[in-house]
């Protein structure tokens, strides 16, 4: 895999909807009223409902997974700040740029600047991701036998 500074990851553009926020609340088990209750949210400094920060961050992880299908899930690190809320109806643009590739005995480590912006350029998320490019791929056969689990709603 040839990776060098300046490489851009495939970006993601996505409009966040209130229906998506509600689906995420159920899926992630986060029913904080600031995301779901319009009356409650109106009394906060934001003035209206906002998307979960982890919903937006999931798009950053999706971008990194697409770029590094195995190495992100096995050896990836991410450090971000949430700069602004995303309001349902807003479109966000998720980007990543390789800033540096360092080599050591353990192999190559890519440092990637990641970001999420709104249409008007306002930062939503800023941060850095680190991906070990030469780490051995995870061997699923080392896992124990997969247990049977009941299907329950929410995670």
């Amino acid at each position, binding site marked *: 895999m040839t990776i060098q500074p300046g490489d851009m990851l495939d970006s993601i553009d*996505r409009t966040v909807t209130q229906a*998506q926020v509600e*689906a*995420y609340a*159920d*899926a*992630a*088990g*986060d*029913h*904080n*009223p*600031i995301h779901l*209750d319009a009356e*409650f949210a109106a*009394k*906060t*400094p934001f003035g209206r409902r906002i998307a*979960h*920060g*982890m*919903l937006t*961050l*999931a*798009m950053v*992880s*999706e971008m990194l*997974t*697409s770029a590094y299908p195995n190495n*992100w*899930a*096995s*050896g*990836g*690190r*991410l*450090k*971000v*700040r*949430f700069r602004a*809320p995303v309001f349902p109806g807003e479109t966000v643009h998720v980007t990543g740029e390789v800033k540096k590739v360092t080599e050591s005995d353990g192999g190559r480590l890519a440092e990637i600047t990641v970001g999420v912006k709104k249409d008007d350029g306002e930062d939503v998320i800023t941060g850095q991701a680190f991906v070990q490019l030469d780490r051995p791929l*995870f061997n*699923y056969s080392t*896992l*124990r036998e*997969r*247990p*049977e*689990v*009941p*299907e*329950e*709603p*929410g*995670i």
Partner: protein
Amino acid sequence: MPLQDLPAGHEFPPESLVISATEAAAYAAAVGDTSAQPAERVPSMAVVAAGLSRFIKHLGLADGTVEVVHASQEVSFNRPVTPGETLEIRAALKSNAERRGSRFATVEMIFVDGSGEEVASASSLILVNAT
């Protein structure tokens, strides 16, 4: 126990976390990730999201009596999680302080598999304001 009564360094009792293929698929659909393969592996961030939601709930921060804002997040992934796999969440309150009327708390979580290996870790800074 309410967040304001917990000292920095407080360790929460370990918790079990299992994410089924159905739950992983629901998560992928909710975030709009059409490239995910939830039957084979849980989307990496779903593990952290599930853990964080639990501790926000445990701390009484999801009942509408306070405003909670996620300020920053760190994660690391050592290997993918398979649907149905049982993990243990070991969580601690790394910091907990009030500044200018807002409470700043950092929750650290380590996700460990059945053989005791760490599969992921996370550190979440949250701001809590009275409503």
